[in-house]
């Protein structure tokens, strides 16, 4: 038995200039009273603004079966697609978003959990080290990827996208797992050197470009296969991370365009290349 602090944030009205809200994390909220929470600031352009200007706050404690006192659960009851950096660098607790989230959701996240009913903007889970992001809809570009210019991306944790992802999914990824139930666009797993990416439907092109480690499995069709990969046999019902995927898969090793002895693997359902 433990006390969980619950905070409900309800957007007051439409947000004009996007706000930067790296302060909306269970870590920042922990141990704060309702009035202290109202004073937490976010940036809107050059202005530092208290959270209460954009959200109505409601705070209560709940007794739950989980362990660990003082866990914070943030419930965002509405659309926050114009709010960036929610859950950035969070290490524990939980954020539930009933609508869609803006850019950089859970970027550099190290632990805890984020659930989004709607979509998430670009850069969700950027440089993520641990924890879990679950997006009911689609994610934008660069989900689970390295920051622009960097070649060291997501190193741990899980991202589950029930819809589609766009380009550069898992770029520079070195650990952890990304599952996209829908399709992805270009350069999924670019410069990947570890971890697993599973794509439920199709990919456009550039899958695994410049990868030297880790695995990518695409269950649908890859429209334009990446040169620099060589066929390396087939696999039946492979186990990917913790899940078994049914079917016969063609296996490819690469990217030989970038390294002499690359350890990257692409699995594609036979007949789909």
């Amino acid at each position: 038995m433990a006390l969980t602090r619950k905070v409900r944030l309800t957007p007051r009205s439409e947000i004009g200039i996007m706000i930067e809200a790296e302060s909306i994390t269970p870590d920042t909220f922990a141990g704060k009273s309702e009035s202290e929470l109202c004073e937490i600031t976010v940036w809107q352009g050059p202005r530092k603004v208290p959270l209460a200007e954009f959200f109505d706050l409601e705070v209560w404690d709940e007794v739950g079966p989980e362990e660990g006192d003082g866990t914070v659960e943030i419930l965002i009851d509405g659309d926050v697609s114009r709010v960036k950096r929610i859950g950035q660098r969070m290490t524990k607790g939980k954020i539930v978003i009933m609508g869609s989230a803006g850019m950089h959701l859970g970027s550099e996240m190290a632990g805890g959990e984020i659930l989004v009913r709607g979509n998430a903007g670009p850069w969700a889970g950027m440089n993520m080290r641990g924890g879990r992001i679950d997006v009911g809809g689609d994610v934008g570009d660069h989900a689970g990827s390295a920051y622009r210019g960097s070649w060291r991306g997501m190193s741990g944790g899980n991202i589950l996208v029930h819809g589609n992802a766009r380009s550069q999914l898992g770029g520079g990824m070195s650990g952890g797992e990304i599952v996209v139930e829908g399709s992805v666009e270009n350069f999924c797993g670019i410069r990947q050197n570890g971890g697993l990416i599973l794509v439920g439907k199709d990919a456009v092109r550039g899958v695994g470009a410049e990868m030297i480690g880790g695995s990518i499995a695409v269950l649908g069709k890859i429209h334009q296969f990446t040169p620099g990969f060589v066929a390396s046999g087939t696999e039946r019902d492979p186990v990917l991370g913790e899940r078994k995927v049914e079917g016969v898969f063609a296996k490819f090793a690469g990217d030989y365009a970038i390294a002499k002895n690359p350890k990257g693997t692409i699995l594609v359902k036979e007949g789909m290349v």
Partner: protein
Amino acid sequence: MPSMVIMNGHVFDPLNGIDGEVMDVFIKDGKVVKDLSSADLKRAEVIDARGKTVMPGGVDSHAHVAGAKVNAGRLMRPEDHIGSVRPRTDITHSGSGYTVPSVYKQGYDYSAMGYTTVFEAAMPPLEARHTHEEMRSTPMLDMGAYLVLGNNWFLMRYLHQGEIEKAAAYVAWMMKTHKAYGIKCVNPAGVENWGWGKNVHSLDEPNIHFEVTAREVIHGLAEVNEMLGMPISLHLHANNLGHPGNAEITKESLAVASDVSSSQKMGVEWTETKVDSHRAQSVYLAHAQFNAFGGTSWRDFKSGAEDLAKYVNKVDHVVIDNGAVPFGPATCMTGDGPSIHDLYVLAGIGGQKWSNTDVELECGSGVIPFTYLKGSPISAIQWAIGLEMLLLVDDPWKTIMTTDHPNGGVFTKYPQVIAWLMSRRARDATAAECHKWGYDRSSLGGVEREMSLFEIAILTRANAARTIGMAHRKGHLGAGADGDVAIYDIDPERFNPDDYEKIISAFGKAAYTIKDGQVVVRQGEVVAVPEVRRYYCEPKVDEGLAKDMMADVREWFKYYTIGFANYPVPDKYLRNPEPIVVNGAEGGC
């Protein structure tokens, strides 16, 4: 401007032979004075420096802080900026970047450490406008830039034909044209070959088309430099940089200039100092660490510093800066394009971003991100070499402390480098954390020397200023010197070198930085943004000679992509320009 008294500090002023004496420093109208009248004293700002260390403002004689390659680094590395952000204040700009900070952040960060003067060590002539634009926007610091001339078509032709006087006339014209301060020579004869995918690997290998050798270029430029009487000697980035075993060619390269004697002929007023404030060297070796490699391959790679230091100890015409490796992220950037390609290949993983540029008739350039890891055997040895090069040279007046920012590491790591120089315990602690090759393949583990505050003052201001010909006003606290002072929270009476964390924090955040008699930093925070100057040289040469030389320049100017009229840097690119007249035609010191 009001007067100032810095009272009761322990003053370290090597050019005036002052070693920690408790005394007062007086400043009036931005200049150090012997004392103040009682009327001035009444109005003077008083700074209590009791129990603190007082030094002249820091002088960095070798850093890469302005111009095209620095900006290429900034553009190439957004990831360098995300974690290193400085918010604006009422008087300062915001800024970002760790290894390649924005110009504003650079100025503030240097100033926070007590530095007041920084020289950009490699300005390609065609990129001079860009370099001056960035220097114009750099706050807090007096600056100047060395012109890259070691692979210049006009000079290679003159030097090969032995037309040394015309070469001097050309250099004089180039200094004025680009508002440059000194001669930088990068991988002489080799960078030109790189335009054809080749390099040179010895001093006597003629390069393609020009048939000139590195030996001819080094000797010729050193001679030209002293004929003109430039403030700084030739600044040399020797051949084979970054190759195992290059200590040998570095020694040979330095020996090339041994028959050239130094001769500064500057039209400036020299303030009186106890130690001669004229430079003694005819060649100033850049980033010795990168040029003091031993072994024959990366497998038997080891330090070659002992050998090179032995040579430097023996001769009187050489000053070196070390180009220390303090570990961590760096951005390697140099006019030595092929060395960047070598590093790209060495880094192993293909696809690493890098860039290379050919600068038309003049030089080249390359940029690559690089991280020095304590666990890497090569990095550990480079760390050791960087420190050996300063600790094994007996006379501190032959050495200057740098990181060759941002090549060996960032300038904000200077306090860490100082700690290693001052504290054997600090070195042992780091050696224990890094790959065992650090101590096993160098002599550093056997070095007992711990530098004093006096020696640190030589390596970080007095000798840096003297070597580059700025000691007529910088690097000391004698009457007439610029009122640039750094005060650090170190009590020499209670100083304990084993407490190296204290050294790092004290040199990282100056208690006060004073620029031209104005407090600009307090406890590491910028409190005022002063006016700053840009130095360059105006050498005078025989007019007839200059006319002949110009005919040659015009003949080949058609090979440039720009028109002749657009070549020079207009005055408006400089903020508070301070030309130094250099009297090449008259001779005599």
